[in-house]
């Protein structure tokens, strides 16, 4: 982590101050904590804060970076750190995912400790992937894309580090808390109240940094990718705050209770839950797609007008559709109808994005054939189209009566997260990492090819197994015999899952293997860095003269 290199002496001093404040906060939490979860989290903050104090203090009076160079270059240190964290969390989240998938097939293999029970490991998987892997990739690439499409350096050198380190502390707090049994019991928002508050502070800083940098842009217009990244930052802040309003039992304890109750709680939870999919796992990654795909293909975006339609369509329609998670529940029918109809209207803007991406490859199909990196992004666009169609389809109420509560939902989510989100992340990483290393290619170009096929095969095995599993479950659960009795017991539907659960674990293991190869490849590439050619990588010189 090359944190201090780009910081001036005064920025290092501020950094030490912030780190010391973090250490003090951690000390206070650890000292006052009434439960072991908060005590551990306080200790983590204390250790991190002290570590940063020493890291910065050790180089406090080293020569600061030469001034013209500092301002004329893009600030990619935070992106590099963010990519490392992306890969680290990929390992954590995917290992946990394969582990819990295996537990579903071999439930007897559950180790005897509470921390390794399915219920605690499952949120480690979801948080590790969505927030750890996805979130770090979004933040890291957003800094990279923002600077290049604005032709401006990040507005200051310290805040990107605070954002990334703070964000990863949130992820680590969340995941360690789950292992100890601390949870708000809200899906994808399990982290407890002080972690949520901490994330709000980090997120506001992230938003401020983004806006300040955009304000410095040398381009007259704001590129599409930045619209999406901004929508991601803004809406996630709104969702996170509203869904996580809670009252702690004690200021010195980790347990809290949400202020929402009953069906309102369910509606707010799924308004959050679905828009976490929409604005975390879709809007942000569309920003990634809109930058890395044309850059890698060397082609202009196919249609600016289609970009506009899909952006505003997605942003407007998505916010309404959360209620399709609550079909046939205590939620009033009219709310369900609105969720269903807006889900269907969402399809065309979603497909417009996927179509725009694929049409952008016109004239570059030879590259798609030869370049596994571009193929990652092509497959991502295809899976984005597939899973958004599936999403609109599953949101139709009668279809949902078959699919709801089955593994079809799990399959749908994974066709989005494996096929779309992870593929576009890997495409972005394979574009970014060689550039950061000042190289033409990754250190092991062949390994990218292996990773691609492992990822595609793993995704297909996973998704097809879950489609079969879900439809089988749905049909078994609703079948009555001629005498008005259920045709199958629930137990039989569980037993019928065995082959699919085994296949799912195998598909996940393939995907994990590919990600391990990617991590090793990135490590080898960054270790073999050459000095970077800065000719094409320079913010406007006019910017420096300000």
């Amino acid at each position, binding site marked *: 982590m090359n944190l201090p290199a780009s910081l001036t002496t005064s920025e290092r001093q501020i950094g030490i101050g912030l780190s010391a404040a973090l250490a003090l906060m951690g000390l206070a939490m650890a000292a006052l904590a009434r439960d072991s979860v908060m005590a551990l989290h306080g200790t983590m903050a204390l250790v991190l804060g002290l570590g940063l104090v020493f890291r910065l203090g050790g180089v406090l009076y080293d020569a600061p970076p030469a001034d013209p160079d500092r301002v004329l270059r893009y600030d990619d240190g935070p992106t590099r750190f963010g990519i490392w964290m992306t890969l680290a969390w990929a390992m954590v989240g995917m290992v946990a995912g394969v582990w819990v998938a295996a537990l579903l097939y071999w439930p007897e293999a559950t180790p005897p400790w509470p921390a390794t029970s399915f219920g605690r490991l499952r949120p480690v998987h979801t948080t590790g992937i969505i927030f750890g892997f996805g979130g770090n990739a979004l933040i890291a690439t957003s800094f990279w894309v923002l600077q290049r499409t604005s032709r401006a350096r990040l507005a200051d050198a310290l805040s990107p580090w605070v954002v990334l380190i703070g964000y990863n502390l949130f992820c680590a707090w969340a995941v360690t808390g789950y292992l100890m049994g601390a949870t708000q019991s809200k899906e994808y928002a399990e982290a407890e109240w002080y972690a949520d508050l901490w994330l709000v502070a980090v997120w506001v800083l992230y938003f401020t940094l983004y806006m300040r940098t955009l304000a410095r842009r040398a381009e007259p217009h704001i590129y599409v990718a930045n619209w999406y990244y901004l929508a991601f930052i803004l809406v996630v802040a709104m969702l996170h705050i509203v869904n996580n309003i809670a009252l702690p039992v004690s200021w010195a304890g980790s347990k809290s209770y949400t202020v929402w109750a009953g069906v309102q709680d369910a509606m707010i939870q799924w308004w959050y839950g679905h828009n976490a999919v929409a604005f975390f796992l879709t809007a942000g990654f569309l920003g990634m797609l809109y930058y890395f795909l044309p850059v890698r293909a060397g082609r202009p975006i196919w249609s600016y007008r289609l970009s506009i*339609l899909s952006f505003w369509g997605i942003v407007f329609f998505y916010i309404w559709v959360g209620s399709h998670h609550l079909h046939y529940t205590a939620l*009033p029918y*009219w709310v369900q109808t609105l969720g269903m109809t807006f889900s269907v209207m969402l399809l065309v803007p979603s497909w417009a994005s996927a179509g725009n991406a694929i049409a952008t490859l016109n*004239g570059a199909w030879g590259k798609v054939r030869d370049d596994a990196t571009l193929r990652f992004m092509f497959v991502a666009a295809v899976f984005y189209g597939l899973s958004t169609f599936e999403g609109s389809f599953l949101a139709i109420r009668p279809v949902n009566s078959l699919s709801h509560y089955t593994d079809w939902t799990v399959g749908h989510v994974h066709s989005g997260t494996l096929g779309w989100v992870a593929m576009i992340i890997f495409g972005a990483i394979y574009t970014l990492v060689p550039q950061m290393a000042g190289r033409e290619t990754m250190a092991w170009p062949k390994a990218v090819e292996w990773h691609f096929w492992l990822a595609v095969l793993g995704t297909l095995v996973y998704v097809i197994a879950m489609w079969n599993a879900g439809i089988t479950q749905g049909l078994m659960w609703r079948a009555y015999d001629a005498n008005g009795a259920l045709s199958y017991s629930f137990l039989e539907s569980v037993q019928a899952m065995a082959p699919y659960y085994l296949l799912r674990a195998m598909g996940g293991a393939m995907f994990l293997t590919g990600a391990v190869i990617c991590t090793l490849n990135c490590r080898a590439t960054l270790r073999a860095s050459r000095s970077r050619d800065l000719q094409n990588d320079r913010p406007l010189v006019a910017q420096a003269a300000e």
Partner: protein
Amino acid sequence: MTRTSDPHDLPGADPHTGNRLIDPVTGYDTTGHDWGGIQELNTPFPKIAAIALLLTFIYAVIAWILLPAWPTGRDYTRGLWGLDQGRMARDGYQAVDTVRQGWLTHFTTPDFAALKSDPLLMAQAMPAAARLFADNCAACHGAAGAGGPGFPALDDADWLWGGEPETVAETIAIGINAAEDSRVAEMPVFDWLEPADRQALATHVAALPKGEAPADSPGAALFAENCASCHGDGGTGGLMAGAPSLTDDAVIYGQDEATILTTLKQGRRGFMPAWNQRLTPAEVNLLALYVSTLPEAKP
């Protein structure tokens, strides 16, 4: 920025011709923007996308007209079909339940001999009973009723409370140690016995099913003194006290010495839920009849 229709003023336009860069692959001009090398084509909005968008809007509007859709303050638009999901769920359930009650009502009166002798009724009822068993009982008693450590087997001739359908129905309905009117079964704690005595007892009890327990050993004396009041002389069981026979090798916790020592030290208090809170009397009787046939059904 002033709006202009003069192509010469468009961003990226050639100042002489007013044309913008034409993409050789698609033949479209660019918008003239450039973001660190990324350009965009000015491709017109595809007609098919507009039509598709319109179709989804039409679908939505039709759905809003037919179904409950928009809030209107304290009320909401009911939709032309006048659907109510609560009523639909009730109607759907009743349609199935009417068919089911056609035969299930016969089970309200627990005349098991008569029920069993009606082959048509049994053909309708037994598959349903099997699913009822799998959904409610199998989690503890096993899918085929084979039991497991702590949970009695239902497919053998050994019963703690009696295997006639009437008795089984009673056990299912009121449970064991579950509610006020449940059957009560409690093996007291014998940790106050000397370890050596507990060991002697355990050796004696472990030998009972094999028929090898000597009648004049210290273990036998201890048994007569402490255990026989519930388990009966010689350990043949005292059904109404819920004390199992110790001679038939069917003790649910196991009858090896180590397990017996644990049982003596900690006591036992088995549990079975009272299903009359969850199942109807007819369903309880149906299950009782099914369970009482499990030993016969065992291959």
